[in-house]
């Protein structure tokens, strides 16, 4: 219980730091919210009226306090461009991001864990080389290039999947593959190296001396121990996925959190940028806390240290 409270306090401190940083950054970056709303041709009186309506004529400290007061009520403000509450915009975009994140994450687990295990078990032989090559290619190809390549092959030439969007049959496949492939590559390498690292541990020798078969050694002893660093990496990756895979969402016109953030930055829609960045920070923190808890559940040593 005490550990949970301590983690909650840690989380709140991180969120406070992030939100203050976001608030200050948006105050400092070039551009004027009044221009976003009224355009450049507005009369001086109208500009002043709008400045007052947006609360921009108040001292910075007062605006900062107002920001936190609104935040405490779950109010992230209204979009300057779309004229909707930011929370509503995030709520509208979240399902698409969750859908893509779940599909990509599932793909990572499906590809990376078996491939990493195969590579480690056949170290130095052709399955290992194949898995290593996959990892190298997966990490090296950027999403903005891989996406259009996959579209050319599977959508334009073979006609199996739609080019982009999220409304047609099979539209999730290519964005999920684009996103999942690079993450799977990283996780494969991590899985392999983690398994090889514990290969020399005495408890594995003991298990083998007791007459356990290789599969049993792998499943009951090697894998649970090797998974700890992999879970940390997966936690970070899931955090990134929930934050919206910005490039993939833009390339595939996927209407998620990432494309909302890009649009908001381009349009200088300050409340939306602020709200989305806060949401991303919250996602990261929560997912990382969850992965910490999972690691503690898997490894009693971590629990004891905590």
């Amino acid at each position, binding site marked *: 219980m005490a550990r949970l409270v301590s983690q909650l306090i840690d989380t709140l401190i991180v969120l406070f730091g992030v939100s203050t940083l976001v608030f200050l950054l948006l105050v400092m*970056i*070039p*551009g004027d919210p009044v221009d976003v*709303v*009224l*355009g*450049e*041709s*507005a*009369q*001086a*009186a*109208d*500009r002043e*009226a*709008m400045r007052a*309506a947006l609360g921009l004529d108040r001292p910075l400290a007062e605006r900062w306090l107002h920001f936190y007061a609104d935040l405490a009520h779950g109010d992230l403000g209204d979009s300057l*461009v*779309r*004229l*909707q509450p930011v929370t509503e915009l995030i709520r509208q975009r979240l399902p698409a991001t969750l*859908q893509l994140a*779940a*599909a990509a994450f*599932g*793909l990572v*687990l*499906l590809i990376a*864990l078996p491939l990493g295990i195969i590579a480690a078990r056949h170290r130095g032989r052709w399955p290992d080389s194949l898995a290593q090559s996959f990892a190298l290619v997966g990490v090296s190809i950027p999403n903005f290039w891989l996406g*259009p390549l996959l*579209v*050319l092959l599977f*959508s*334009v030439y073979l*006609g199996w999947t*739609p*080019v*982009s*969007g*999220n*409304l*047609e*049959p*099979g*539209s*999730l*496949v290519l964005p*999920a593959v684009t996103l999942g492939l690079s993450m799977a590559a990283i996780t494969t390498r991590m899985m392999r190296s983690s398994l090889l690292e514990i290969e020399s541990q005495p408890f594995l020798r003991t298990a083998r001396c007791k007459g356990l078969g290789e599969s049993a050694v792998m499943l009951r002893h090697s894998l649970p121990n090797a998974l700890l660093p992999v879970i940390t990496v997966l936690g970070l990756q899931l955090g990134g996925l929930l934050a919206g895979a910005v490039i993939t969402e*833009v*390339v*595939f*016109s996927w*209407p998620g959190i990432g*494309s909302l953030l*890009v*649009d908001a*930055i*381009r*349009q*200088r829609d300050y409340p939306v940028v602020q709200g989305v960045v806060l949401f991303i920070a919250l996602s990261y923190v929560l997912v990382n806390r969850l992965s910490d808890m999972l690691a503690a559940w898997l490894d009693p040593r971590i629990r004891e240290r905590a």
Partner: protein
Amino acid sequence: MVRLAAICLCLLLVACKPPDTDTLIFAVANAPGVLDPRLAGDAASERTNALLYDRLVMLDEQGKPQPQMATWRMLGPDHYRLSLLPSRAPFWDGRLPDTRDVAATYRSLLDPTLGSPHGGALAKVREVVVVNDSDVDFLLSQPDPSFASRLTVGIVPAQAATGRSLGRQPLGSGPFAFVEWRDDGGVLLRRRTDGQRVALVPVADPTMRTLKLLRGEAHLLQNDLPGELYGYLADARGLAVQEGPGTTFAYIGFNLEDSVVASRDVRAAIAHAIDRDAIIRYLFGGRAQKAESVLRPQHWAGVGGLVAYPYDPQRARDLLRRAGYDEKHPLTLSYKTSTDPFRLRIAHVLQSQLAAVGIDLKVRSYEWGTFFGDIKAGRFQMYSLAWVGVNTPDILRYAFHSASAPPGGANRGRYRSAEVDALIERAERAEPAQAAQLYAAVQHRIHEDLVYVPLWYESNIAATRGLEGYVPGHDGNYRALAHTRMTHVQRQ
């Protein structure tokens, strides 16, 4: 692992819905954000609003006002009477727009609490008075012979004019009705005449837009593509590429408070060093026309006969020498542009052409907000931008009058000319025929002073698949959708 695979498969299937083959899909670079004509400021929203809301007046290709919902009479220099046409279309709830709707729309535009980007253009309106069921009077604070051309904001129902909620649930009297916001961030519309559904679907990446059209997932795309993609589409089977003259005016601007580019000889040298024909031929694939002024010569306030600064590298070198620059004292200039890959490519061609006459151009590329912020703040020597959707001669005051230096306008180069100021002010008070002459004089002076190096008008280009009757509007508008027909469409 098997369970995991099953979950993944389910997730992929969740995304599946049967394709809608009867809807005309228009792939756009940016989705319309606000479907309230009083609040929309971005081009995508304004073009979509023109489909949803009829206006009192619309501007034709020469920029002249034409009646859409109403005719007008000038009862005095500061008094206009608008009379609603009996043939006007009803709102989509079946009610005919009346004078209360007109008055409520324009009164709300003048209300600073609404925060309309169109309020500035209507600053001279003192009062809007409902005379009877068909007439509305606009009383001005000072004479404005061109006032009718400012009445181009869509009319909204009076009951919706008080708040800002109309933008999410639009209700107008235009040729299209709003149906719904789509899950992909687009908007679905329905045509009044035959119920044809049209979806404006955002596809930010130009390559993806092209591929969607090639595969038959989209039927129409317009502008915002690199030149080579138009060439590619023009050669593709089953596609048609339509090209029309555009009003988007590209130019190079100068900071006239900078001691180097304040020299007219330096600016003239730059103008003579740029080979516009080559850029139009090779980068635009011929899909642009050389420009000399922000208003097209065909515009009622435009000017023909402006003599171009010809491509003449030797003359450019002579001018530079006269300004005190030669091989021993080369001229180095900073040129700011956005991160748009096509604009960057143009910047590097300009860099190469200017290097040939001895100018070392340092290209500085910035993210749009930073770039535009620097331009407005005067933190630049040279930059390139384009004026989009220029329809009225108000642009001359906005971009060149001394009082229009930011934040009061868009005279970003801080150009000051008492002669130009006086000509603009006289033109604004003059009848159209005389105003045209005065605006011509303004443009001659600006061209002579080389406030901008004028570059080109970018053509409006539409690529279609399985459509009949679509032509891009002169200012990039989508009005042709009102009579575009879908023919047989087959997916590849």
